Protein backbone atom coordinates (compact mmCIF):
# COMPACT_ATOMS: atom_id res chain seq x y z
CA UNK A 1 0.00 0.00 0.00
CA UNK A 2 2.79 2.35 0.99
CA UNK A 3 4.73 1.50 -2.17
CA UNK A 4 1.69 2.27 -4.28
CA UNK A 5 1.24 5.62 -2.50
CA UNK A 6 4.89 6.56 -3.00
CA UNK A 7 4.52 5.72 -6.68
CA UNK A 8 1.47 7.96 -6.98
CA UNK A 9 3.33 10.79 -5.20
CA UNK A 10 6.27 10.43 -7.58
CA UNK A 11 4.05 10.83 -10.64
CA UNK A 12 4.39 14.30 -12.21
CA UNK A 13 0.58 14.36 -12.35
CA UNK A 14 0.39 14.35 -8.55
CA UNK A 15 2.48 17.52 -8.10
CA UNK A 16 0.61 19.36 -10.86
CA UNK A 17 -2.74 18.28 -9.39
CA UNK A 18 -1.69 19.22 -5.84
CA UNK A 19 -0.35 22.63 -6.96
CA UNK A 20 -3.44 23.46 -9.04
CA UNK A 21 -5.75 22.42 -6.20
CA UNK A 22 -3.72 24.46 -3.69
CA UNK A 23 -3.81 27.49 -6.02
CA UNK A 24 -7.59 27.25 -6.46
CA UNK A 25 -7.97 26.90 -2.68
CA UNK A 26 -5.68 29.93 -2.23
CA UNK A 27 -7.92 32.01 -4.51
CA UNK A 28 -11.05 30.81 -2.76
CA UNK A 29 -9.65 31.70 0.69
CA UNK A 30 -8.38 35.05 -0.64
CA UNK A 31 -11.89 35.93 -1.87
CA UNK A 32 -13.50 34.83 1.42
CA UNK A 33 -11.02 36.65 3.69
CA UNK A 34 -10.30 39.65 1.45
CA UNK A 35 -7.08 40.60 3.28
CA UNK A 36 -3.69 41.26 1.66
CA UNK A 37 -2.06 38.76 4.02
CA UNK A 38 -4.29 36.03 2.52
CA UNK A 39 -2.32 36.16 -0.74
CA UNK A 40 -3.33 33.24 -3.04
CA UNK A 41 0.28 32.38 -3.90
CA UNK A 42 1.36 32.41 -0.24
CA UNK A 43 -1.58 30.19 0.74
CA UNK A 44 -0.91 27.80 -2.15
CA UNK A 45 2.78 27.45 -1.20
CA UNK A 46 1.89 26.89 2.47
CA UNK A 47 -0.76 24.28 1.54
CA UNK A 48 1.66 22.36 -0.72
CA UNK A 49 4.44 22.41 1.91
CA UNK A 50 1.99 21.30 4.64
CA UNK A 51 0.64 18.48 2.44
CA UNK A 52 4.01 17.04 1.46
CA UNK A 53 5.29 17.30 5.05
CA UNK A 54 2.18 15.65 6.51
CA UNK A 55 2.14 12.81 3.96
CA UNK A 56 5.91 12.39 4.15
CA UNK A 57 6.37 12.99 0.43
CA UNK A 58 10.04 13.51 -0.53
CA UNK A 59 10.69 16.88 -2.21
CA UNK A 60 12.23 14.94 -5.13
CA UNK A 61 8.83 13.35 -5.80
CA UNK A 62 7.09 16.71 -5.74
CA UNK A 63 9.71 18.15 -8.08
CA UNK A 64 8.80 15.55 -10.75
CA UNK A 65 5.76 17.69 -11.49
CA UNK A 66 7.09 20.88 -9.90
CA UNK A 67 9.80 21.10 -12.55
CA UNK A 68 7.14 20.92 -15.29
CA UNK A 69 5.23 23.85 -13.72
CA UNK A 70 8.47 25.81 -13.22
CA UNK A 71 9.32 25.29 -16.92
CA UNK A 72 6.49 27.72 -17.76
CA UNK A 73 8.19 30.54 -15.83
CA UNK A 74 10.36 31.36 -18.86
CA UNK A 75 7.43 31.70 -21.30
CA UNK A 76 5.37 33.53 -18.62
CA UNK A 77 8.15 36.12 -18.22
CA UNK A 78 8.58 36.37 -22.01
CA UNK A 79 4.91 37.20 -22.65
CA UNK A 80 5.23 40.20 -20.33
CA UNK A 81 6.49 41.71 -23.60
CA UNK A 82 2.87 41.55 -24.83
CA UNK A 83 1.55 43.49 -21.82
CA UNK A 84 4.34 46.09 -22.24
CA UNK A 85 3.61 46.32 -25.98
CA UNK A 86 -0.09 46.96 -25.24
CA UNK A 87 0.96 49.96 -23.08
CA UNK A 88 3.52 51.23 -25.59
CA UNK A 89 2.10 54.80 -25.64
CA UNK A 90 2.36 55.11 -21.86
CA UNK A 91 5.89 53.70 -21.90
CA UNK A 92 6.95 56.21 -24.58
CA UNK A 93 5.38 59.12 -22.72
CA UNK A 94 7.05 58.15 -19.42
CA UNK A 95 10.41 56.91 -20.65
CA UNK A 96 12.51 59.20 -18.43
CA UNK A 97 10.54 58.58 -15.18
CA UNK A 98 10.60 54.83 -15.99
CA UNK A 99 14.38 54.74 -16.29
CA UNK A 100 15.00 57.13 -13.35
CA UNK A 101 12.64 55.19 -11.05
CA UNK A 102 14.05 51.74 -11.80
CA UNK A 103 17.69 52.90 -11.62
CA UNK A 104 17.19 54.68 -8.28
CA UNK A 105 15.05 51.80 -6.95
CA UNK A 106 17.63 49.14 -7.86
CA UNK A 107 20.48 51.12 -6.30
CA UNK A 108 18.47 51.79 -3.14
CA UNK A 109 17.62 48.08 -2.94
CA UNK A 110 21.28 47.02 -3.04
CA UNK A 111 22.40 49.84 -0.72
CA UNK A 112 19.71 49.09 1.89
CA UNK A 113 20.49 45.35 1.80
CA UNK A 114 24.19 46.11 2.24
CA UNK A 115 23.54 48.51 5.13
CA UNK A 116 21.28 46.09 6.99
CA UNK A 117 23.71 43.19 6.45
CA UNK A 118 26.43 45.32 8.10
CA UNK A 119 24.04 46.23 10.92
CA UNK A 120 23.30 42.54 11.62
CA UNK A 121 27.00 41.66 11.18
CA UNK A 122 26.26 39.05 8.52
CA UNK A 123 29.33 37.63 6.78
CA UNK A 124 30.41 38.25 3.18
CA UNK A 125 28.87 35.04 1.82
CA UNK A 126 25.40 35.93 3.14
CA UNK A 127 25.71 39.61 2.13
CA UNK A 128 26.70 38.67 -1.44
CA UNK A 129 23.77 36.23 -1.53
CA UNK A 130 21.25 38.89 -0.46
CA UNK A 131 22.43 41.89 -2.55
CA UNK A 132 20.61 40.99 -5.82
CA UNK A 133 17.41 39.82 -4.04
CA UNK A 134 15.05 42.27 -5.77
CA UNK A 135 15.81 40.89 -9.26
CA UNK A 136 14.38 37.75 -10.83
CA UNK A 137 15.88 34.38 -9.72
CA UNK A 138 18.23 33.61 -12.66
CA UNK A 139 19.74 37.13 -12.59
CA UNK A 140 20.10 37.09 -8.80
CA UNK A 141 21.71 33.63 -8.80
CA UNK A 142 24.16 34.66 -11.54
CA UNK A 143 25.25 37.76 -9.61
CA UNK A 144 25.44 35.95 -6.24
CA UNK A 145 27.61 33.19 -7.75
CA UNK A 146 30.02 35.74 -9.22
CA UNK A 147 30.52 37.31 -5.80
CA UNK A 148 30.82 34.08 -3.83
CA UNK A 149 27.37 34.25 -2.19
CA UNK A 150 25.49 31.19 -0.90
CA UNK A 151 23.12 30.42 -3.77
CA UNK A 152 20.37 28.71 -1.74
CA UNK A 153 20.08 31.84 0.42
CA UNK A 154 19.73 33.90 -2.78
CA UNK A 155 16.94 31.66 -4.11
CA UNK A 156 15.08 31.83 -0.78
CA UNK A 157 15.56 35.63 -0.54
CA UNK A 158 14.23 36.20 -4.08
CA UNK A 159 11.17 34.05 -3.43
CA UNK A 160 10.43 35.60 0.00
CA UNK A 161 10.90 39.09 -1.49
CA UNK A 162 8.49 38.18 -4.30
CA UNK A 163 5.87 36.90 -1.86
CA UNK A 164 6.24 40.02 0.33
CA UNK A 165 5.91 42.25 -2.75
CA UNK A 166 2.84 40.42 -4.04
CA UNK A 167 1.29 40.41 -0.59
CA UNK A 168 1.97 44.05 0.36
CA UNK A 169 1.65 45.82 -3.03
CA UNK A 170 -2.01 46.90 -2.66
CA UNK A 171 -1.41 47.97 0.96
CA UNK A 172 1.73 49.98 0.07
CA UNK A 173 -0.07 51.73 -2.80
CA UNK A 174 -2.75 52.85 -0.33
CA UNK A 175 -0.28 53.64 2.48
CA UNK A 176 1.92 55.89 0.30
CA UNK A 177 -1.19 57.28 -1.48
CA UNK A 178 0.19 56.48 -4.95
CA UNK A 179 -2.35 57.67 -7.52
CA UNK A 180 -0.02 57.35 -10.52
CA UNK A 181 -0.38 53.79 -11.96
CA UNK A 182 3.01 54.12 -13.71
CA UNK A 183 4.73 54.79 -10.35
CA UNK A 184 2.85 51.93 -8.66
CA UNK A 185 3.71 49.39 -11.38
CA UNK A 186 7.38 50.36 -11.51
CA UNK A 187 7.65 50.21 -7.71
CA UNK A 188 6.18 46.68 -7.68
CA UNK A 189 8.44 45.37 -10.47
CA UNK A 190 11.61 46.99 -9.13
CA UNK A 191 11.10 45.81 -5.54
CA UNK A 192 9.69 42.34 -6.15
CA UNK A 193 10.43 41.21 -9.75
CA UNK A 194 8.15 38.71 -11.56
CA UNK A 195 6.28 37.49 -8.49
CA UNK A 196 5.25 41.04 -7.62
CA UNK A 197 4.35 41.55 -11.28
CA UNK A 198 1.90 38.64 -11.10
CA UNK A 199 0.03 40.75 -8.51
CA UNK A 200 0.48 44.02 -10.47
CA UNK A 201 -1.30 42.38 -13.45
CA UNK A 202 -4.39 41.89 -11.28
CA UNK A 203 -4.32 45.51 -10.06
CA UNK A 204 -4.44 47.02 -13.56
CA UNK A 205 -3.13 46.81 -17.14
CA UNK A 206 -0.83 49.82 -16.78
CA UNK A 207 0.49 48.59 -13.42
CA UNK A 208 1.17 45.13 -14.90
CA UNK A 209 2.96 46.47 -17.98
CA UNK A 210 5.10 48.92 -15.98
CA UNK A 211 5.97 46.21 -13.46
CA UNK A 212 7.04 43.99 -16.37
CA UNK A 213 9.18 46.78 -17.81
CA UNK A 214 10.84 47.28 -14.43
CA UNK A 215 11.93 43.61 -14.29
CA UNK A 216 14.02 44.06 -17.42
CA UNK A 217 15.45 47.49 -16.58
CA UNK A 218 16.08 46.71 -12.88
CA UNK A 219 17.73 43.42 -13.83
CA UNK A 220 20.01 45.21 -16.26
CA UNK A 221 20.91 47.95 -13.73
CA UNK A 222 21.68 45.36 -11.04
CA UNK A 223 23.87 43.37 -13.45
CA UNK A 224 25.81 46.48 -14.51
CA UNK A 225 26.17 47.85 -10.99
CA UNK A 226 27.30 44.52 -9.54
CA UNK A 227 30.21 44.49 -12.02
CA UNK A 228 31.55 47.58 -10.22
CA UNK A 229 31.19 45.86 -6.83
CA UNK A 230 33.86 43.29 -7.61
Amino acid at each position, binding site marked *: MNDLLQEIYASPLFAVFLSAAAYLAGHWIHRKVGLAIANPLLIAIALVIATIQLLGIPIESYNQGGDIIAM*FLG*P*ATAVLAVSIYRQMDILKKNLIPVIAGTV*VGSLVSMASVYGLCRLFRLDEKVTAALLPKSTTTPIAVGIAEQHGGIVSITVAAVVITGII*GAMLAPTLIKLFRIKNPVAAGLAIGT*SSHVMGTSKALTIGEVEGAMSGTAIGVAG*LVTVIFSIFLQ
Partner: protein
Amino acid sequence: MKLLLQIAVVFGVCLVGEVLEMLVPLPIPASVWSMVLLFLCLLCGALREEHIREKADFLLKNMAFFFIPAGVSIIEHYGVLKSVIVPFLIICFVTTIITFAATAGTVILVTRLMDRGKEHE
Protein backbone atom coordinates in the same frame (compact mmCIF):
# COMPACT_ATOMS: atom_id res chain seq x y z
CA MET B 1 -4.65 24.36 -33.83
CA LYS B 2 -4.53 28.09 -33.16
CA LEU B 3 -3.37 27.56 -29.59
CA LEU B 4 -0.75 25.01 -30.68
CA LEU B 5 0.65 27.56 -33.11
CA GLN B 6 0.79 30.14 -30.32
CA ILE B 7 2.58 27.70 -28.01
CA ALA B 8 5.08 26.97 -30.78
CA VAL B 9 5.74 30.70 -31.31
CA VAL B 10 6.18 31.52 -27.60
CA PHE B 11 8.31 28.45 -26.84
CA GLY B 12 10.32 29.07 -30.02
CA VAL B 13 11.16 32.61 -28.88
CA CYS B 14 12.11 31.22 -25.45
CA LEU B 15 14.43 28.67 -27.09
CA VAL B 16 16.24 31.48 -28.92
CA GLY B 17 16.42 33.23 -25.52
CA GLU B 18 18.16 30.16 -24.06
CA VAL B 19 20.67 30.17 -26.91
CA LEU B 20 21.39 33.87 -26.25
CA GLU B 21 21.90 33.15 -22.54
CA MET B 22 24.50 30.53 -23.45
CA LEU B 23 26.28 32.73 -25.99
CA VAL B 24 26.35 36.10 -24.19
CA PRO B 25 28.75 36.13 -21.19
CA LEU B 26 26.50 38.24 -18.92
CA PRO B 27 24.28 37.01 -16.08
CA ILE B 28 21.15 37.86 -18.10
CA PRO B 29 18.74 34.92 -17.96
CA ALA B 30 16.98 33.33 -20.93
CA SER B 31 13.60 34.60 -19.72
CA VAL B 32 14.72 38.26 -19.91
CA TRP B 33 16.33 37.70 -23.34
CA SER B 34 13.04 36.12 -24.52
CA MET B 35 11.05 39.07 -23.19
CA VAL B 36 13.27 41.58 -25.03
CA LEU B 37 13.21 39.43 -28.18
CA LEU B 38 9.42 39.06 -28.16
CA PHE B 39 9.05 42.80 -27.57
CA LEU B 40 11.32 43.60 -30.54
CA CYS B 41 9.41 41.10 -32.74
CA LEU B 42 6.14 42.89 -31.86
CA LEU B 43 7.70 46.33 -32.42
CA CYS B 44 9.14 45.59 -35.85
CA GLY B 45 6.02 43.69 -36.92
CA ALA B 46 7.66 40.27 -37.31
CA LEU B 47 4.95 39.05 -34.94
CA ARG B 48 1.48 40.48 -34.44
CA GLU B 49 -0.36 40.38 -31.15
CA GLU B 50 -2.98 37.96 -32.50
CA HIS B 51 -0.22 35.42 -33.18
CA ILE B 52 0.16 34.89 -29.44
CA ARG B 53 -2.80 36.61 -27.75
CA GLU B 54 -4.60 33.65 -26.12
CA LYS B 55 -1.40 31.93 -24.98
CA ALA B 56 0.00 35.19 -23.61
CA ASP B 57 -3.23 35.97 -21.74
CA PHE B 58 -3.32 32.47 -20.25
CA LEU B 59 0.25 32.82 -18.94
CA LEU B 60 -0.22 36.43 -17.74
CA LYS B 61 -3.51 35.75 -15.95
CA ASN B 62 -2.18 32.69 -14.11
CA MET B 63 1.39 33.85 -13.60
CA ALA B 64 1.48 33.39 -9.81
CA PHE B 65 0.64 29.69 -10.23
CA PHE B 66 3.96 28.96 -11.93
CA PHE B 67 5.83 30.21 -8.84
CA ILE B 68 4.46 27.55 -6.50
CA PRO B 69 7.40 25.11 -7.01
CA ALA B 70 9.89 27.96 -6.40
CA GLY B 71 8.11 28.76 -3.14
CA VAL B 72 7.98 25.12 -2.09
CA SER B 73 11.74 24.82 -2.76
CA ILE B 74 12.34 27.05 0.30
CA ILE B 75 12.06 23.96 2.51
CA GLU B 76 15.09 22.55 0.66
CA HIS B 77 17.11 25.63 1.67
CA TYR B 78 15.84 25.86 5.22
CA GLY B 79 18.90 24.09 6.66
CA VAL B 80 21.21 26.85 5.39
CA LEU B 81 18.79 29.61 6.38
CA LYS B 82 18.12 28.50 9.95
CA SER B 83 21.13 30.25 11.49
CA VAL B 84 20.26 33.66 9.95
CA ILE B 85 16.48 33.38 9.71
CA VAL B 86 15.56 36.45 11.83
CA PRO B 87 17.88 39.01 10.18
CA PHE B 88 17.08 37.33 6.83
CA LEU B 89 13.33 37.96 7.19
CA ILE B 90 13.82 41.49 8.56
CA ILE B 91 16.11 42.37 5.63
CA CYS B 92 13.69 40.93 3.06
CA PHE B 93 10.75 42.81 4.57
CA VAL B 94 12.39 46.19 5.18
CA THR B 95 14.38 46.46 1.93
CA THR B 96 11.37 45.46 -0.20
CA ILE B 97 9.33 48.30 1.32
CA ILE B 98 12.25 50.79 1.05
CA THR B 99 12.81 49.84 -2.61
CA PHE B 100 9.10 50.17 -3.33
CA ALA B 101 8.98 53.65 -1.75
CA ALA B 102 12.21 54.84 -3.42
CA THR B 103 11.04 53.74 -6.89
CA ALA B 104 7.55 55.20 -6.60
CA GLY B 105 8.92 58.42 -5.06
CA THR B 106 11.45 58.89 -7.86
CA VAL B 107 8.87 58.30 -10.59
CA ILE B 108 6.43 60.78 -9.04
CA LEU B 109 9.16 63.39 -8.48
CA VAL B 110 10.61 63.12 -12.00
CA THR B 111 7.12 63.21 -13.56
CA ARG B 112 6.33 66.40 -11.60
CA LEU B 113 9.64 68.05 -12.53
CA MET B 114 9.04 67.25 -16.21
CA ASP B 115 5.49 68.62 -16.10
CA ARG B 116 6.78 71.80 -14.48
CA GLY B 117 9.50 72.05 -17.16
CA LYS B 118 6.83 71.86 -19.86
CA GLU B 119 4.79 74.65 -18.25
CA HIS B 120 7.79 76.97 -18.40
CA GLU B 121 8.34 76.39 -22.11
